[in-house]
């Protein structure tokens, strides 16, 4: 991290005079980085205690640095899982609230914030405030998805779910193009709690948007019968930064072709390891090093439902016209907008891209944002590193209200991040 990161078990002490807190640093852009003029951040990961767990109400209260890995290590063996999980379990509760994370079940479960009961914050004037739907509800709505800018998140109280087994029943299906993909996502959403898909971003023309659709649910006790509790899996590691050649057009073309073609039969069904289903990214340690020295960024946007498949196709065309800018995309249908004022999802199609950083990345993001703006969509701040302030303002009609609440609690903008300087125009 550029600047200094302070670590302590004592979050109250740690957050006394820093502009931003950060957890496991998995947001892809500058969301957890401090502003350039005050290069110091509070790392919350040592503040990782459970404060209570009530199996009756399925409610956990814990310190903000507890990660989903830590949470599930204790509670999944007893049959509990978070109601909403992103594609990595290396996320802290503080990060989950700040980014109002979403996952494969967004169409039925909404965002993480939908299941948060209260958040305890150290606000800018130093006070410790607990907010919820009932108490300080404005602060609560601004904090859910507020990228840690309304106060340092100290504690989170949230609901869990009981699962029928720790295993997943998964179906995957080969889908030939984007129109078929959107229809298949729609159909799957009616019967399955979890859906998402991988799209081959190199395929163009008639097979543009081809890929693999995945739908899943917790396996029933009968389906998981005879299986022991899933052991943590061996994680191969990328040992060092790979040359950029490793993820170049021809190699990935071959990889994507293989990934698509080897999916035989067209529909597969079976019980799979929960990590393979929820956390495919965590299966390879330091996978980001595959992207070489200059690394990668992510880009995730949502194209509103009203834009239909035409809107999604138009977006993919901007992308595939620049062959090889991104190799794989994750596609997912989003359900209703949550209560978080800056929360990302809205009803529509979310598309997430890994983009290798190249000289023209800014131009690419500008072009993609132009498309998203034209369709009335928006981008996900937790993954953003290149969106311009003027674009973001146009995407976010809710921004003014969020700023009003934020400034009521922090008139001097003591809480800032590198991202808030870039995207919200905060003083550096």
């Amino acid at each position, binding site marked *: 991290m550029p600047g200094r990161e*302070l*670590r*302590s*078990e*004592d979050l109250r002490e740690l957050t006394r005079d820093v502009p931003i807190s950060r957890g496991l640093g998995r947001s892809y852009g500058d969301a957890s980085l401090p502003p350039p003029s005050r290069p110091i951040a509070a790392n919350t990961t*040592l503040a990782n*205690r*459970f*404060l*209570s*767990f009530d199996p009756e109400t399925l409610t956990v209260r814990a310190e903000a640095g507890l990660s989903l890995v830590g949470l599930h290590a*204790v509670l999944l063996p007893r049959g509990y899982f978070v109601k909403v999980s992103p594609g990595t379990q290396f996320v802290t509760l503080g990060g989950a609230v700040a980014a109002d994370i979403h996952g494969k079940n967004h169409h039925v479960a909404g965002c993480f914030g939908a299941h948060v009961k209260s958040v305890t914050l150290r606000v800018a004037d130093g006070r410790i405030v607990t907010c919820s739907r009932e108490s300080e509800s404005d602060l609560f709505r601004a904090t859910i998805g507020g990228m840690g800018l309304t106060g340092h998140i100290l504690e989170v109280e949230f609901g869990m779910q009981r699962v029928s087994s720790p295993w997943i029943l998964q179906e995957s299906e080969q889908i030939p193009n984007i129109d078929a993909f959107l229809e298949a996502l729609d159909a799957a959403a009616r019967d399955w709690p979890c859906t998402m898909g991988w799209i081959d971003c190199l395929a163009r023309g008639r097979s543009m948007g081809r890929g693999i659709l995945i739908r899943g649910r917790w396996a029933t006790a009968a389906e998981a019968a005879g299986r022991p509790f899933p052991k943590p899996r061996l994680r191969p590691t990328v040992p060092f930064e790979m040359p950029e050649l490793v993820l170049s057009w021809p190699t990935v073309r071959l990889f994507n072709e293989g990934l698509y073609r080897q999916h035989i039969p067209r529909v597969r069904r079976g019980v799979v390891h929960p990590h393979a289903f929820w956390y495919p990214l965590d299966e390879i340690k330091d996978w980001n090093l595959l992207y070489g020295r200059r690394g990668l960024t992510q880009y995730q946007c949502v194209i509103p439902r009203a834009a239909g498949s035409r809107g999604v196709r138009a977006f993919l065309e901007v992308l595939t016209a620049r062959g090889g800018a991104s190799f794989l995309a994750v596609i997912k249908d989003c359900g209703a907008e949550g209560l978080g004022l800056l929360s990302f999802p809205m009803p529509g199609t979310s598309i997430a891209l890994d983009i290798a950083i190249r000289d023209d990345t800014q131009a690419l993001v500008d072009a993609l944002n132009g498309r998203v703006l034209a369709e009335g969509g928006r981008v996900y701040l937790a993954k953003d590193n290149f969106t311009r302030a003027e674009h973001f303002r146009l995407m976010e009609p809710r921004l003014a209200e969020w700023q009003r609440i934020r400034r009521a609690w922090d008139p001097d903008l003591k809480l800032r991040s590198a991202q808030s300087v870039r995207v919200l125009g905060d003083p550096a």
Partner: protein
Amino acid sequence: MKALILGATKGIGRALARQIAARGDSLFLLGRDLEDLERSARDLEVRGAKGTVGVARCDLADPAGFVKALDAADRALASFDTVIVTAGLFATQDKLEADASFTASLLHANFTATILFCEEARKRLLARGGGTLVVFSSVAGERGRKPVILYGASKAGLSAYLEGLDHKFRAQGLKTVCVKPGFVKTSMTEGLPPPPFAGEADDVARIALHAIDRGTPVVYAPRIWALVMQVIRLMPRFVMRRVGF
């Protein structure tokens, strides 16, 4: 196991307490800050500790309070069988050289007070036929070294005391386990550049717990530090005088 831990709210002590809780053993926590102890107690209960995890105030700076704290633990656990001390003070050599009053506090806490606490605990364990006394010393006490002269001296004295205890009382059922961590990445060493072989609290706790179960008198953690210290012990003085560590 019915374990009493002094220093379970932070760092290696926290990691060790969690591993003990995860196997369903009973715990009682001693420390300086009651509110903080209560939070750790709830954490350990969620993680599987048996029954309620009790707490009591106990400050190494104040040996007059040891008896009361140990009484509270004895009552809550119905006679503990394992006493673990991970608490201690640390500061860099530069800071200690510049601050005589903190040096006095550190020497007192790490040596005098820790030993007084162990004496009280040992008497109780021996009176009930034995048990395990686990104390976290440090590789810093293995040899006089430039970067850890004062801290190392306090730990050298502590290690010598623990070795003596082990020789004298093992036959009577008191197992003494001296854990010697190398550099471990915790809040105690926050801000210091980690040297090669720097360890993680969870790994050190795992090694310590294994040693506690087996009653191993001395254990280095991470294990590579046994080898590193062997080399350092064998270095002639004229070499030690020249090297930086």
